[in-house]
């Protein structure tokens, strides 16, 4: 255990260098270099592994570690060489395993090693040249060449100056090649990824365009970059004595069909220098400082997201924080991640909790910046992507629930003067609904000014479908009420049910099996009313009468009507509707396609723009996806078992039976998988078909009436279609062929087809 203790100590020493200390960073690095040099004879491979790992996993401390490697190389040339070789091996591994963001950090590390006299500049330029030559490849996805260009550009803030000093002709040629590539690349995907559709006040730039502009400006400034912390400058006299290594020629690995390159991004901007009036000036959107700050803050979140206190502390102790309006950068980066399309890098709730931690640590300044950002986001709701508005609703309501729902609602009274379907009043309405779910109805009434009463959510109480109280108390309801309440058996209830006439039929169906909407009305309403007290009561009721429900809903019409009745009695309590629909799917009373058809039905048209509809739809799709994944996993496990069994067969003659059983099981699972996938494909087809029908109807109506298509309803509809693609892109990829042949054909209105084309462009 002694070696293990020493290895842990080495790990700890290396990981913690650069953190708050009584000594200066330089003296800590000097000291650590000495310790490591002394340990090289016995622990060289361990030290190599740790240093490679921090290069990959702690990019926010890049220059601290490159300096350390520089010092080690100056003391031990061979070690420097071995480290470079190990890094190249690691780079190949990360690329092979689709770990593209880590690969970026590795290349950036290598490029900063030029500044530390570990790697010779010409060999770095040669690697960059090989990367940029990928832009000449034909028949490869654009996202592949995008990545190689991104890597080169993103290293230049660190090493541009040094490379230009040594190899300006080659670098100019490189940049010119990049410029040519950027001009000819396709940017169909950009609208789908933008948080706002408007360009004012801040354009939502595509990430490569923004980085290019930043590098152009850096070049104009003669590569003078003042933000990056460069500890190696203090050691220049030692480092420039060191011998440099040449990077081995590095050929980028060829394109593989299963490669998953990173998706393109849009740079999120909500602040500029005018928004932080006091204190240090915020670097401009095309300054390289902005790029470096944002990059480092993203890296800190990536490293520490699981531990919110540490994450908040690390963000707030960003080196060089006194020269920038750090709180503004932090808030902007966090919202940038939260609103990222298709999806945030981490689970949404992490950002809520991280912001709360930050408010705790900086109570005198951060809450104000957050309020300012919220105000700005509210002001720009009209052009904000619907998916992003959803996330803003969820964040804001959850945030408020941690601060006694204190907010200056009066500041937003402008939203009361417009059509309530417009984005601003709609946003406030949905926020108040979510706030109510985390508290209770009267609380919401109390926290908003009386002028906001039109936006207050309905009191979430059960309402009978029949508006007339006496109609509810018909003999049938009364009989049911007693039958259910008195714990009649299922058979007894079915007997009573048999007597409910079927308005759809003349003759009495002896079996009582055909679709009878009245039976469903009476039974379900009574049951749900009795169980209305809580979710648990309702779940218990659905469980107890599961067989009856399945019988009543054993046709497509039956399922649809069941959902219709459910909605009608709980229409004031969308949360209850959602959890009941979830239960009905999980207990297989209704299937996913039935839910999709119900949500798109005419009866639900008036709710089409409400958030709870989409939450139910996406939850339904997710359940379908998880179901398919589960069976696929079972199939894989059975196949693995069979393989193992077949190896055993050679040794044990009796295992033939087991093999046979396994083969049967695999056949059954195979069928199950195919059936599940077929159901999944059908679900997406239903959803897309419905969208196309609804949206086309609107577009045609507007065209014939010469009316502007851009109504709030249309904006919601087209962006909800986009949202289906964005939220389930991995699954939908499998069905692209069918979608293109059956649905997204050239005959489609170009507005709708554009959404499909933008989606396809995401992975090209």
């Amino acid at each position, binding site marked *: 255990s002694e070696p293990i203790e020493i290895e842990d100590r080495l790990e700890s020493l290396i990981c913690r260098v650069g953190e708050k200390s009584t000594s200066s960073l330089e003296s800590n690095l000097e000291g650590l270099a000495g310790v490591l040099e002394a340990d090289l004879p016995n622990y060289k491979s361990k030290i190599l*592994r740790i240093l490679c790992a921090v290069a990959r996993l702690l990019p926010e401390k890049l220059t601290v570690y490159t300096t350390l490697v520089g010092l080690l190389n100056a003391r031990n040339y061979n070690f420097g060489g071995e480290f470079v070789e190990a890094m190249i091996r690691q780079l190949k591994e990360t690329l092979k395993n689709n770990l593209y963001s880590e690969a970026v950090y590795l290349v950036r590390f290598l490029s900063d090693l030029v500044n530390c006299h570990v790697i010779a500049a010409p060999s770095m330029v040669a690697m960059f040249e090989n990367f940029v030559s990928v832009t000449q490849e034909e028949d490869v996805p654009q996202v592949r060449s995008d990545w190689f260009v991104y890597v080169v550009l993103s290293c230049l803030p660190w090493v541009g100056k040094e490379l230009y000093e040594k190899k300006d002709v080659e670098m100019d040629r490189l940049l010119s090649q990049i410029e040519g590539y950027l001009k000819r690349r396709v940017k169909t995907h950009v609208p789908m990824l933008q948080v706002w559709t408007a360009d004012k006040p801040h354009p939502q730039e595509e990430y490569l365009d923004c980085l290019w502009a930043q590098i152009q400006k850096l070049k104009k400034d003669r590569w003078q970059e003042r933000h990056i912390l460069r500890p190696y400058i203090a050691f220049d006299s030692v480092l420039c004595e060191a011998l440099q290594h040449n990077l081995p020629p590095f050929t980028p690995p060829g394109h593989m069909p299963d490669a998953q390159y990173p998706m393109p991004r849009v740079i999120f901007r909500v602040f500029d220098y005018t928004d932080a009036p006091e204190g240090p000036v915020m670097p401009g959107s095309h300054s390289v400082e902005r790029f470096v700050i944002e990059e480092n803050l993203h890296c800190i979140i990536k490293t520490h997201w*699981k531990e919110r206190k540490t994450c908040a502390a690390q963000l707030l102790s960003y080196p060089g924080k006194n020269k920038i309006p750090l709180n503004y950068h932090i808030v902007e980066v966090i919202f940038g991640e939260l609103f990222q399309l298709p999806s945030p890098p981490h689970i949404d*709730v992490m950002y809520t909790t991280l912001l709360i931690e930050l408010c705790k640590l900086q109570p005198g300044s951060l809450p104000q910046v957050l309020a300012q950002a919220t105000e700005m986001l509210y002001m720009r709701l009209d052009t904000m992507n619907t998916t992003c508005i959803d996330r803003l609703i969820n964040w804001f309501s959850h945030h408020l629930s941690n601060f006694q729902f204190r907010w200056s609602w009066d500041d937003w009274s402008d939203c009361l003067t417009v059509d309530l379907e417009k984005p601003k009043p709609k946003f406030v309405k949905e926020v108040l609904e979510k706030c109510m*779910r*985390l508290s*209770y109805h009267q609380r919401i009434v109390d926290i908003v000014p009386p002028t906001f009463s039109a936006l207050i959510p309905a009191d979430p109480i059960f309402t009978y479908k029949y508006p007339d109280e006496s109609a509810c108390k018909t003999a049938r309801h009364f009989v049911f009420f007693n039958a259910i309440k008195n714990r009649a058996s299922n058979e007894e209830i079915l007997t009573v049910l048999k007597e409910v006439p079927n308005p759809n039929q003349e003759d009495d169906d002896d079996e009582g099996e055909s679709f009878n909407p009245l039976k469903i009305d009476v039974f379900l309403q009574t049951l749900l009313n009795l169980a209305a007290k809580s979710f648990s009561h309702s779940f218990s009721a659905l469980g107890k009468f599961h067989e009856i429900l399945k019988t009543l809903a054993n046709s497509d019409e039956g399922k649809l009507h069941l959902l219709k009745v459910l909605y009608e009695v709980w229409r004031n309590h969308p949360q209850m509707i959602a959890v009941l629909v979830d239960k009905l799917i999980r207990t297989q009373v209704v299937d996913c396609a039935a839910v999709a058809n119900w949500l798109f039905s005419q009866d639900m048209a008036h709710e089409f723009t409400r958030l709870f509809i989409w939450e139910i739809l996406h939850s339904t799709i997710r359940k379908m996806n998880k179901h398919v994944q589960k069976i696929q996993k079972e199939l894989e496990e059975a196949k693995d078992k069979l393989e193992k069994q077949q190896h055993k067969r050679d040794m044990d003659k009796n295992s033939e039976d087991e093999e046979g059983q396994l083969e049967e099981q695999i056949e059954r699972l195979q069928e199950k998988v195919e059936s599940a996938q077929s159901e999944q494909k059908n679900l997406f087809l239903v959803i897309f078909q419905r969208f196309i029908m609804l949206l086309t109807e609107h577009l045609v109506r507007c065209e014939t009436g010469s009316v502007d298509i851009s109504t709030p309803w249309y904006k919601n509809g087209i962006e909800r279609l986009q949202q289906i693609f964005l939220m389930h892109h991995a699954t939908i990829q499998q069905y692209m062929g069918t979608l293109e042949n059956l649905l997204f054909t050239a005959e489609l209105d170009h507005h709708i087809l554009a959404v499909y084309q933008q989606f396809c462009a995401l992975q090209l």
Partner: protein
Amino acid sequence: MSVKLNALNSDSYIDISQYRDQHFKGNRYDQEKLLKQSNTLYVGNLSFYTTEEQVHELFSKSGDVKRIIIGLDKIKKTACGFCFVEYYTRGDAEHAMRFINGTRLDDRIIRTDWDAGFKEGRQFGRGKSGGQVRDEYRQDYDPARGGYGKLAQQHRPTEVRNSF
């Protein structure tokens, strides 16, 4: 080459706590094993008025909730300030430990902890008066948890009478 560094792998919010259920049927090792695999969380410091719906809304933010069992006073059978939240997957429960534990529900900072798994009977408070043990002995006044602690309440009535 994909080395994981212990120093960087900290995920302390999902560690199991010191608490062990004294009524657990099995030894310490069994209990700890279950805690480390569990999808169920104990949630404490709830208001007596916090509803299942509120718990569901909050805890759904870290994943799909399988079921919620509201803790009840053993005698009165009313909510007594705790509950269990069971998720379908461990990963979702871990997110709750990381991001919902220590935040507010119904204006109160709630606390989550791993639970070895719900068993019938565990939904009842174990304090002598029927509620949770912590409400037997606490000295402070908490209007959302029945006012003063049960022991303190036994002394209070005399004081109130004397004040008139």
